[in-house]
């Protein structure tokens, strides 16, 4: 327990109030906002376990993909001070996990939808979030939270770093071309230094009372591994990183993964 005990109830209160989307002192008219994340590979729905072909011809598959999303806010114009747009908080920390959705083709097409309720109606022009767990909560440990809370799952925490695992991308590669996915492909990234702020998605939206609004964002795994205009990661030789600072190259590799990950999102609707 790295935090003092008296801080626990306070942090739990703030987290639950921010993540419990239908709580809070919202006044005036409201509506719901659905934000759907779709995991794709090269623009096509990503189905876990299906063979994919990498840029160098290597066959590989993906078996896990998830990321923490922090400080998800809606942005709206500020007439009084146009240089300081207004922000409406949607959530502080959410885990977006494609495990269930992308296990099937139908689920991969549907994606993972987060529904925010009781969002004040009005004009908005962007959605933004940070990739990873904000340092304020990354200093906590899973035992500070209930087991069903995203930050309470020990599988999303790595004790060696004293950090949550910001993103997980896992699969296997067929290094010999014989049809067997014989080698592990795994990127687990974390630590405060790798937190990525400022993912911004511009979209003019007028939220009207009782009229649900929708937004769809694609996450293209190809852009994580082989970004357009960038250098592809060698998924055979550099296909494994726990972001272990004691192992040469892992932090650099994870930094690349996080930067690519940040740029792999596209607003499609």
């Amino acid at each position, binding site marked *: 327990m790295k935090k003092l005990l008296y801080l626990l109830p306070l942090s739990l209160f703030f987290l639950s109030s921010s993540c419990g989307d239908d709580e809070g002192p919202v006044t005036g008219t409201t509506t719901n906002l659905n934000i759907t994340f779709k995991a794709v590979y090269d623009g096509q729905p990503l189905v876990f376990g299906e063979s994919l072909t990498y840029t160098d011809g290597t066959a590989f598959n993906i078996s896990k993909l998830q990321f923490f999303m922090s400080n998800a806010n809606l942005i709206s114009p500020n007439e009084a001070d146009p240089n300081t747009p207004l922000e409406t908080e949607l959530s502080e920390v959410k885990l977006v996990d494609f495990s269930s959705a992308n296990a099937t083709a139908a689920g991969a097409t549907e994606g993972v939808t987060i529904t925010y309720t009781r969002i004040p109606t009005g004009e908005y022009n962007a959605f933004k979030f940070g990739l990873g767990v904000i340092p304020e909560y990354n200093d906590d440990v899973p035992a500070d939270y*209930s087991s069903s809370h995203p930050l309470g799952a*020990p599988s999303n925490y*790595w*004790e060696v770093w004293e950090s949550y695992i910001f993103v997980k991308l896992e699969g296997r590669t067929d290094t010999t071309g014989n049809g067997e996915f014989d080698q592990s492909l795994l990127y687990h990234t974390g630590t405060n230094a790798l937190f990525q702020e400022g993912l911004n998605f511009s979209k003019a939206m007028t939220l009207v009372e009782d009229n649900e609004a929708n937004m769809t964002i694609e996450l293209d795994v190809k852009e994580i591994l082989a970004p357009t205009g960038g250098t592809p990661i060698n998924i055979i030789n550099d296909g494994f990183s726990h972001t*272990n600072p004691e192992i040469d190259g892992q932090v650099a590799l994870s930094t690349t993964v996080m930067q690519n990950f940040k740029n792999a999102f596209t607003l499609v609707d």
Partner: protein
Amino acid sequence: MTKYLPFLVLYILFGLVACSDDDTPTADPNDLTTIAYTPEAYTVALPAEFPPLEIPTDNPLTKEGVQLGRRLFYDPILSADSTMSCASCHQLEVGFADPLPTSVGIDGIAGTRSGMSLLNIAYSLNGLNWDGKIASLEEQALEPVTNEIELHESWPNVIEKLKRHTDYPSRFRKAFGIENKSEITKELAAKAIAQFERIILTGANSKYDRVLRGEAFFTDEELNGFDMFFDISPELPDAECGHCHNGALLSTNEYFNNGIDNAPTLDDFIDKGRGEITGIPFDNGRFRATTLRNIEFTAPYMHDGRFQTLEEVVDHYNSGGKYAPNLDPLILPLGMTDSQKQDLVAFLKTFSDTSYQENPDLQNPFE
């Protein structure tokens, strides 16, 4: 008509008195309302590093509920021939697990899976059993009674036996406030068993915990094992254990294919595990990662009890596992030497803590 009026009044009066007599609680042998219903909350002494317990609001822990559940757990009354109880396959001395590779029921028929340890089962919120088939302890407690290769009984029979019992009706009254024996149900029995199972907790007094608290020191061998388990030292191989077995519970309760079966295709698993439940081929051969608390005592290991010793388990993981398209990427050749494997086993034994066995609330009430 008026000459009959006095008789009519008398008739009604007698009728009322007679009805009144029939409703007198003491006249009903099944009535339980003379027994006080004053349940007391059961306070769990959670290890300091454990997350808060999540208890269903419709089944709070009470002393009376836990004690009823404890009796039902240990009582062979739940089986058709009164020879086996829950405790037959979940034995206190071995971490509430089954020492047999696969559990054997009252008819001498072995199932296909090993009885899992129930230690800290209250935290298994990602599905129970090896495959996550059942969502809650309350639901799970219903299943073994009617399972043909387990207790092979019917719930109506069990309920009749409980109603006739000299002690149980009163305990159901005290635990759940029922007013009549007829209100004893399988759902209440399952709730009581679930309450008992939620207090099967361990975690504060192992050497591992004491070292983390600064109250003890690892031996050199244990420290090497610790470093490999959590990938702390670049000088030693990463045993990759801590990904699936971490946190205070030493488990993530997630589902993995840990490479114990060769399956050239996803259809080739003999036991499809998680895939049998989800219907998703990529889940075939995946099983729930169990807690490693008291792993020293919960042999044999894996869902089918194929490994008799921790040394065999470590050998398996060190080998990199057997091929399947969905082999977990954390299962890979580890490169541990024989000495390092012994160090890892030494560390695994620091998870041992038998102090839970001294908790009288967990012990067999019939001994």
